[in-house]
């Protein structure tokens, strides 16, 4: 029996362990990931079992972590880097954008950079400043990077395995408020493709598209709407870049309505890209304009205000009402 019930953080831990067992070139790097096991314990026990040569506690320098990971990848390693929190990735942003993303193209494909950058992201845990941000659009805008975010333990396990196996750099966004959510993980079953969206709940009246931490909010919204006789389809996008527009199109052609939900600010966010493309692809199918629900054009607020900032059940259902009113 290969099915176990695990919290999302533990599923990631199992995934990293399996990847390290399977391939001696897989290395983990980051601040406090060794003896401490990471501030969220995602690398718990790996230092003890694989040693400091493969679970590398680094100096406190994000650019240094990513820059040296690039060098290690050039030497044939497959580094999995942990950035401790979303808001701390920016010292490394230069290395990620100007170097990691472009080096494969610069070398006309002659070198590969299989680097995974793990970033616990998003809010909802009452954290202090810089510990709750959603930077996915900043990375998705950069050609050469892939950006993914699991929403449940099973995807966390498999998407991490697939990200490590990928020869491209992958920004792996871990929904930190879901770290403790439990779910079934079947470690023996062949997974969906890393970049394929999946229907998390079938419906016929409207499509809710989300990824990472917002999938659960959308599922809850769909359950609440069902009580009022509305049938909402929930699409778990899973991958922000590439984005599975075919799956969104299929769903929208069925339901004729689309609401996109993410934590990041709406302005210039991934929802804008999805709305534009789906309008192009599904112009004659849509019964209402594509609506977006997300964060505001403000710095992430102090924790006491984050429930106002984050899309919750009510804001999602309000958007559903507005869409259905057309």
């Amino acid at each position, binding site marked *: 029996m290969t099915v176990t019930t695990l919290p999302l953080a533990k599923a990631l831990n199992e995934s990293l362990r399996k990847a390290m067992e399977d391939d001696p070139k897989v290395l983990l790097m980051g601040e406090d990931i060794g003896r401490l096991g990471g501030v969220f314990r995602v690398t718990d026990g790996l230092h003890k079992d694989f040693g400091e040569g493969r679970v590398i506690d680094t100096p406190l320098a994000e650019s240094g972590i990513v820059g040296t990971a690039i060098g290690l990848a050039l030497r044939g390693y497959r580094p999995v880097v942990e950035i401790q929190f979303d808001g701390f990735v920016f010292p490394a942003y*230069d290395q990620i954008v100007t*170097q990691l993303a472009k080096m494969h193209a610069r070398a006309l494909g002659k070198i590969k950079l299989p680097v995974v950058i793990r970033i616990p992201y998003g809010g909802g845990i009452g954290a202090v400043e810089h510990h709750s941000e959603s930077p996915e659009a900043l990375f998705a805008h950069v050609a050469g990077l892939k950006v993914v975010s699991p929403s449940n333990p099973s995807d966390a396990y498999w998407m991490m395995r697939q990200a490590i196996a990928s020869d491209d750099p992958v920004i792996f966004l871990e929904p930190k408020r879901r770290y403790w959510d439990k779910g079934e993980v079947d470690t023996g079953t062949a997974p969906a493709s890393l970049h394929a969206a999946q229907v998390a709940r079938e419906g016929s009246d409207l499509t809710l598209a989300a990824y990472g931490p917002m999938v659960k909010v959308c599922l809850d919204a769909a359950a609440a709407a069902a009580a009022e006789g509305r049938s909402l389809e929930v699409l778990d996008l899973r991958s922000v870049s590439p984005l599975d527009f075919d799956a969104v199109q299929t769903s929208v052609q069925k339901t004729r309505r689309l609401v996109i939900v993410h934590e990041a600010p709406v302005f210039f966010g991934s929802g804008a890209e999805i709305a534009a493309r789906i309008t192009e692809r599904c112009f004659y199918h849509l019964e209402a304009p594509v609506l977006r629900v997300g964060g505001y054009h403000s710095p992430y607020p102090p924790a006491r205000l984050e429930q106002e900032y984050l899309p919750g059940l009510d804001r999602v259902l309000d958007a559903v009402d507005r869409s259905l009113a057309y």
Partner: protein
Amino acid sequence: MTPDADTVQLLTPEGELVSHPEYHAEVSADGLRELYRDMAWSRRMDGEGVTLQRQGELGLWPSLLGQEAAQIGAGRALRDDDYVFPSYRDHAIALCRDVDPLHLLRMFRGVSNGGWDPAEKNFHLYTLVIGSQTLHATGYAMGTAKDGAEGAVLTCFGDGATSQGDVSEAFNFAAVYNAPVVFFCQNNQWAISEGNERQTRVPLYQRARGFGFPGIRVDGNDVLACLAVTKQALERARAGEGPTLIEAFTYRMGAHTTSDDPIRYRDSEELEHWRAKDPLARVRALLESRGWADEAFFADVDTRCEERASRLRTDLRETAEPPPGNIFAHVYADGHALVDEERADFAAYQASFTDREAK
């Protein structure tokens, strides 16, 4: 801009050998003639880059004029299994690694962003973002040590790069992990228009001490000293003794790139001061005083350089334009749905012109 008494020098500007307690010049007739040939070709190739830019064949050229000794010294200190992470002015080191200079010219022509296979040449692509490559070099060196391989890593950067956080982070990572990497800083005195006094308040080689590894300043216009110092640093690295910082104290005789005008920011006296320290002239003086080279040798070097430069010029002008579809080539190793979609759209758009012409 004055080197201190600790600066390692083995060959004076007048072409006289001087002894040093720790470093020794490797002097043989053949060896010295080879170093001269290398420097002469570097200078000629570089001059061709400047000319071709002036003729509109290149968009830009960063000249190495004045830095031949630093680069040939470091480049010839390398073993085949060593790996180099260069900046964007390291043309002479590229030549030492057998990178076709046509690749360098094409890059500044706008045909590619590199073009050579880094792993085949053990010479990484030029890095334009200042100092980024020092971290790549450090990571690569950490990997080399993990593999138990013997090669060392050399990374090149300028005085301006030492102001970047990445360079300090690279120093620290290299020290913490005892990485087999040699940091080769060519202090050519000017970061575009900003002099050393805008980059640092302490001599650059002294920085290494704060990170816990040796820093050495070498006369960067003395090829024998650059060779000896770099060789020893690479040997230290290979022997597991960790990183070294070398500050090659030199001077950029030309502009930062063909886009700037050094007359605006530095005076001719300074230029004359450094002209008297010319890296080629002093090797030539030594060759002549030893009777190891005559007029015929130097004429032959010049003729060969002219022939190679001429061939290079012809080859560059015959370079085909990159096919437009290259925009989409190698963005991802494993593919990306959006790139595939845009590639198809682009091809259809291009084909629409052909179809119209056919009608």
